[in-house]
């Protein structure tokens, strides 16, 4: 445990010292400012449109907040993949890892220390950005979406799945190959999610199965879709009025699969790193 904490500490130190944290916080700040300004103008319109019913006003603000959370989800997944993408492969290629791995430490501790550190950073990043989005929605639009307590943890889990894949891939692959692979998986999940959505709207079970297979290959998009479903009012879900409304809700089993998927990926990464010639 002590070894893991030493590696965790060094990794966090590195993120701070190499201005990685500063850069991500600046980009998060820029996004929040942009979102705040946009939200302000839309909310101005919505709140002053006398002809608009309370329900429609509510839906417009919910849509806007979900759009902000969708952007958060995207920024978080990019950050979660890119932050740790070269942490193992880069150190293996440069030889930095040799002095660490020749110490009396388990190789698994090196992987776990880095995984913990980057998971913390990714979840903290997600927490900062999503809190910003929700505070903007509350302060400007006087609106808070429902189901946050169920939705936000799913989005945080999504970040952890991406961090895990990025680190596990880096234990076996070169940095660029690893990046391409993880984003390729994201692409599969993204397209699969849309195929499933359209398929369920037109009632095509074969195409729906394609979506399910895609979610099994990469369950992150299913996590987002379940989170988005939980964070909108029931009326919007029923009417399927926004791109965040979905035909078939990803099941709780899919959430558990995501947890299992990340665990397997981490195990796979540790095994790869243990056998790797450094």
């Amino acid at each position, binding site marked *: 445990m*002590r*070894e893991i904490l*030493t590696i965790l500490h*060094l990794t966090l*130190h*590195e993120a701070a*010292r*190499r201005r990685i944290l500063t850069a991500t916080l600046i980009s998060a700040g820029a996004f929040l400012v942009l979102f705040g300004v946009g939200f302000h103008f839309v909310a101005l319109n919505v709140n002053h449109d006398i002809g608009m019913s309370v329900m429609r006003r509510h839906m417009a603000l919910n849509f806007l907040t979900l759009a902000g959370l969708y952007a958060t989800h995207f920024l978080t997944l990019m950050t979660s993949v890119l932050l740790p993408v070269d942490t193992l492969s880069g150190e293996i290629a*440069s*030889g*930095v890892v*040799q*002095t*660490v*791995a*020749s*110490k*009396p*430490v*388990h190789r698994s501790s090196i992987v776990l220390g880095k995984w913990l550190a980057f998971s913390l950073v990714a979840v903290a990043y997600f927490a900062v950005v999503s809190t910003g989005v929700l505070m903007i929605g509350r302060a400007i639009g006087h609106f808070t979406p429902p189901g946050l307590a169920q939705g936000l943890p799913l989005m945080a889990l999504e970040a952890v799945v991406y961090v895990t894949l990025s680190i596990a891939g880096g234990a076996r692959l070169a940095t660029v190959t690893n990046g391409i692979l993880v984003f390729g998986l994201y692409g599969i999940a993204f397209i699969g999610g849309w195929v499933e959505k359209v398929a369920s709207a037109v009632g095509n079970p074969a195409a729906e199965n394609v979506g399910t297979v895609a979610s099994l290959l990469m369950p992150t998009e299913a996590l987002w879709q379940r989170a988005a479903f939980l964070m909108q009012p029931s009326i919007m879900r029923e009417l399927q009025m926004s791109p965040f409304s979905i035909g078939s809700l990803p099941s709780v089993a899919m959430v558990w699969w995501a947890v299992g998927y990340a665990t397997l990926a981490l195990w796979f990464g540790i095994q790869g790193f243990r*056998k790797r*010639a*450094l």
Partner: protein
Amino acid sequence: MTAPVIETQRLRRRFGEKLAVADLSITVQRGEVFGFLGPNGAGKTTSLKMLLGLISPTSGSGTLLGKRIGDRAARAKVGFLPEHFRFQDWLTGRELLHFHGRLYGLSGAALKRKADELLTRVDLRDAAERPIKGYSKGMTQRIGLAQALMNEPDVVFLDEPTSGMDPLGRLLVRDIIHELRARGTSVFLNSHLLGEVEATCDRVVFVKQGRVVHELVLAAESAGLEVELRVDGATPELLAAHGTLLSSQNGSARVRVAHESALPALAEALVRSGARLYAMTPHKRSLEATFLEVMGEDQRPG
């Protein structure tokens, strides 16, 4: 006799089609400074990494400090300075030592004290609070050397420790190696600088294509001495009587003798025979000459 610190039997490592180390069987004793020599591509670094558990052998076996190589516990008493030492260069020198010290299990006052002591020893106290990326090559090697000594190791692996160092830096490394030996620490030295190996090692092995092809005990001068003579009127038979005559022409001759003790006898025999002896200069056979001979003519610069 105490158990050897390193002992390997037929270690072999293959990378796909390439056989990096064919058959490595070596023994290193406690307190010994052991030189590992060979041309580039001879498998030296791969051998060293196998001993440190960074690479697992394809076959063969070995022990490090009495434990199977690759065993984590054995590495607690091992120090390692890799070739082209690269590390977390965003850390300061002191932070690097603290980090590596923690990996060895040090903490608190003991960790601080050891880091201070080594920063002084490698003459980097002034630069301790500066990021390593601003260090010169020699300073980088020195902080790397300090990192390898944080745990007061029983055996230290140094892979090209003086590459990029100025003469003062080299002298410092040489002094540290002598100190380590005096303390009973074994040193496994991988170096291309034969003069340096000659000055520090007790014993060297020559590796070629992943095999030990020759072993030389430097302290015992078993390679013998070459004697240069300026002498008139000496017969070849007389010159060869105490060693091997290598060449003789125009009043100068070269003779190889087994040991220094042969010199007075040779001088006496020459004088007695009536030959006129002007000069007699013994030379230790250079390691470079042995290296070239052992590696053979077919070697090309790596």
